[in-house]
């Protein structure tokens, strides 16, 4: 479904992604794990079109999207739950969700999807008139996920959904991710929380300073000493 | 040494041409404007270019200098030198009083605050009857000679160049480059911002004194923010952070102004285009931050 091939990304003098390749098959959960600063967020931003790679290509459903504008990429069916949630703090929960559906014209279906989000996150329904900035961290994360779902994505990119959340909430979020996936959305999950991520993913990639150093099925990596080393050092 | 000789020769030559009348009234007026503009541009460049603090109130300091020097020479009967000292000191004081509170503000807010202070100075001058109110002061004796102009321009430029090429100057420039890094390197950024602001204001006041004692009349209207924009055009065109650029641009703008004297609107349209085009296509200005070396005591 998504094919990232040999992309190189630079921030000024920093070579942030080095010949990075990732393949994601339809219907799967793929996770990208690695320490801070490894380049995970950069990878997601590049897929979403926020950053242009200097070389390499990205194809989505066999269409080259390497140089496509971010809003077109959203329209094609890739949406993102950005790192740190990034909800529109001074807008209501409802408005945030409406923004998720910004490109959609099918009013009826949008209404239905909104209801679906509210069924999934009843707490958001209670708070739909509240400003997003006043929600708790967990609720904001749910809103960010709900907002991304409103775009009807075929591929959902999630950047550190567990960041800054209490362990119990993290568990809840991961269950939700599995549920979204079981309803047919392909997911690329970037995580620091390696165990959690590996426990729900099909395939995984481990990143270190802009490169993929390890890849395989989640099961293989789960028990790998290499993974522990990548995080805690040898 | 060579530069010193060249400067002296230039001074003598112009003095000679004035004395024998080769340089007529018209050229002399433009020469005067040129020197005053150089002082204004070089001093504003210290604030806007080197310190990176956008000030739009330079005309206000010029006004303070012009009025205090005239009060000294015309109303209190003091010699010109006292007038000039009063101009420098009062403008520097105004710079201090305005700089201390406003320099806490960042970027565009600072710009607007300085513009506001400049205008307040003008309005206050308008409302003081002792100095003529809106009508200003007329009949100021012409004390600004070529010697004063030349010495003033050279001294202003040298002081600022020397300041910039010292550890103090580097501290000032580091504020422009990265204020937080500068502070963490042990530099009291507030103090150096105020220092640059005060020195800049001082020379603007000096320019004001020279102006008042050449052009016969001063009124608050002359020192509105449009005058500040004039100087800003020079600094932007020459390159924020290049003294050489400021000097060249001041000369160029003076010539341009003289050439377009009969088409004032065209002149302003050109100024506007200079600001826009330079910012879009060459934000570093003509000279960037490069300098021609000018070593006199070095």
């Amino acid at each position, binding site marked *: 479904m998504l094919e990232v091939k040999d992309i190189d990304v630079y921030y000024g003098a920093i070579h942030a992604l080095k010949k990075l390749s990732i393949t994601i098959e339809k219907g799967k959960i793929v996770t990208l794990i690695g320490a801070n600063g490894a380049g995970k967020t950069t990878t997601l931003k590049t897929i979403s079109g926020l950053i242009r790679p200097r070389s390499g290509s990205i194809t989505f459903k066999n269409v080259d999207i390497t140089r496509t504008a971010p809003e077109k990429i959203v329209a094609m069916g890739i949406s993102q739950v950005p790192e740190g949630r990034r909800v529109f703090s001074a*807008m209501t929960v409802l408005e945030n969700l409406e923004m998720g559906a910004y490109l959609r014209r099918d009013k009826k279906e949008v209404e239905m999807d909104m209801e679906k989000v509210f069924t999934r996150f009843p707490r958001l329904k209670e708070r739909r008139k509240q400003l997003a900035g006043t929600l708790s961290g967990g609720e904001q994360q749910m809103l960010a996920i709900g*907002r991304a779902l409103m775009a009807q994505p075929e591929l959902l990119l999630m950047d550190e959904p567990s960041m800054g959340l209490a362990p119990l909430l993290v568990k809840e979020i991961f269950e939700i991710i599995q549920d979204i996936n079981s309803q047919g959305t392909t997911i690329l999950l970037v995580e620091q929380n390696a165990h959690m991520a590996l426990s729900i993913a099909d395939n995984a990639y481990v990143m270190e300073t802009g490169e993929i150093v390890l890849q395989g099925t989640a099961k293989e990596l789960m028990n790998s000493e290499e993974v522990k080393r990548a995080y805690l050092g040898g | 040494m060579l530069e010193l000789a060249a400067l002296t020769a230039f001074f003598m030559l112009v003095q000679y041409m004035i004395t024998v009348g080769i340089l007529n009234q018209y050229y002399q007026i433009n020469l005067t404007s040129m020197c005053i503009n150089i002082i204004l541009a070089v001093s504003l460049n210290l604030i806007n270019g080197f310190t990176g603090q956008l000030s739009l109130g330079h005309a206000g300091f010029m006004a303070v200098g012009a009025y205090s020097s005239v009060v000294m020479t015309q109303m209190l009967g003091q010699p010109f030198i006292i007038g000039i000292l009063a101009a420098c000191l009062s403008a520097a004081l105004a710079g201090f009083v305005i700089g201390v509170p406003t320099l806490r503000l960042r970027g565009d807010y600072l710009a607007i605050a300085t513009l506001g202070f400049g205008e307040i100075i003008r309005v206050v001058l308008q409302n003081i009857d002792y100095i003529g109110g809106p009508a200003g002061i007329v009949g100021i004796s012409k004390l600004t000679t070529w010697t004063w102009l030349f010495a003033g321009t050279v001294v202003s430029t040298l002081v600022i160049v020397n300041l910039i090429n010292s550890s103090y100057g580097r501290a000032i420039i580091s504020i422009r480059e990265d204020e937080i890094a500068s502070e963490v390197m042990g530099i009291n950024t507030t103090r150096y911002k105020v220092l640059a602001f005060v020195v800049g204001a001082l020379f603007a006041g000096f320019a004001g004194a020279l102006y008042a004692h050449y052009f016969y009349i001063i009124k608050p209207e002359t020192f509105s923010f449009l005058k500040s924009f004039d100087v800003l055009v020079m600094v932007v065109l020459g390159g924020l952070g290049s003294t050489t650029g400021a000097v060249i641009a001041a000369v160029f703008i003076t010539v341009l102004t003289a050439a377009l004297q009969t088409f004032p609107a065209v002149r302003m349209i050109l100024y506007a285009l200079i600001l826009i085009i330079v910012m879009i296509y060459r934000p570093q200005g003509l000279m960037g931050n490069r300098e021609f070396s000018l070593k006199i005591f070095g």
Partner: protein
Amino acid sequence: MLEFFQQAVNGLSLGAIYALIALGYTMVYGIILLINFAHGDIMMVGAYVGFFSISLLGSNILVAMIFAMVTCAVLGVLIEKIAYKPLRNSTRIAALITAIGVSLFLEYITIFLLGATQRVFPASAFPAKYYNLMGIVISNKDIFIIVSAVLLMIVLHYIIKRTRTGKAMRAVSLDREAAVLMGISVDRTISVTFAIGSSLAAAAGVLVGVYYNTINPLMGIIPGLKAFVAAVLGGIGIIPGAMVGGFVMGILETMVSGYGSSLYRDAAAFGILILILLVKPTGLFGKNNGEKV
């Protein structure tokens, strides 16, 4: 006491005008963090378009206003595309200097094309009537200005709160990158913001023509600066702040002229500006957010 209320009423219509101009400042600042120095001059262009459509085309005041609003919306978008867009990634100071350039350009191109002389806004467009309400005199001009300004503010409020475009504007100003991830086109949203802000300024320009009876190419400077102060007073980037700030500035100004000296009226505006900047730079309605390191 009567005198006080009379001044307040006088200030109300002036304040309505300031509020309209301040809205444009605040919207543009909210979305691209630029003090659009040329905003007051767009108002001036609006006043001229209004003037010519009345005096040359003989249109009535409402048509003139609509005409001015459309023209200035286009002008605002053009200015953004030509002068500000190339600087979107430069420093804010570079953008501000450009804005000063645009301001001077609009002022002096108008002088160049139309002359510097003052023009009298056709009185035929608005024959003056006065009403006496319990001792307070109010003119039909005041009523017209206040009513049209308030109507425009209601429309703006509706656009921003209810429409898809308005919500996109808010989203872009809150978090540009997140907005892009929603599929919102930032360029288009910025253009819309300039169009709306400039058309409000144009409406204000026509109202200034009605209020002062005269227009000239430099008429935008002082009201522009005062409206800017109003925007800062209310907290720049905050729309209700701009409205409140505008009315406060208008009323304060008439009070200063009425009770003090009209000579100090402009200095008072700047005094307020500096006081606000020093005491609470985020304005009356603003929240504090420091620089992230």
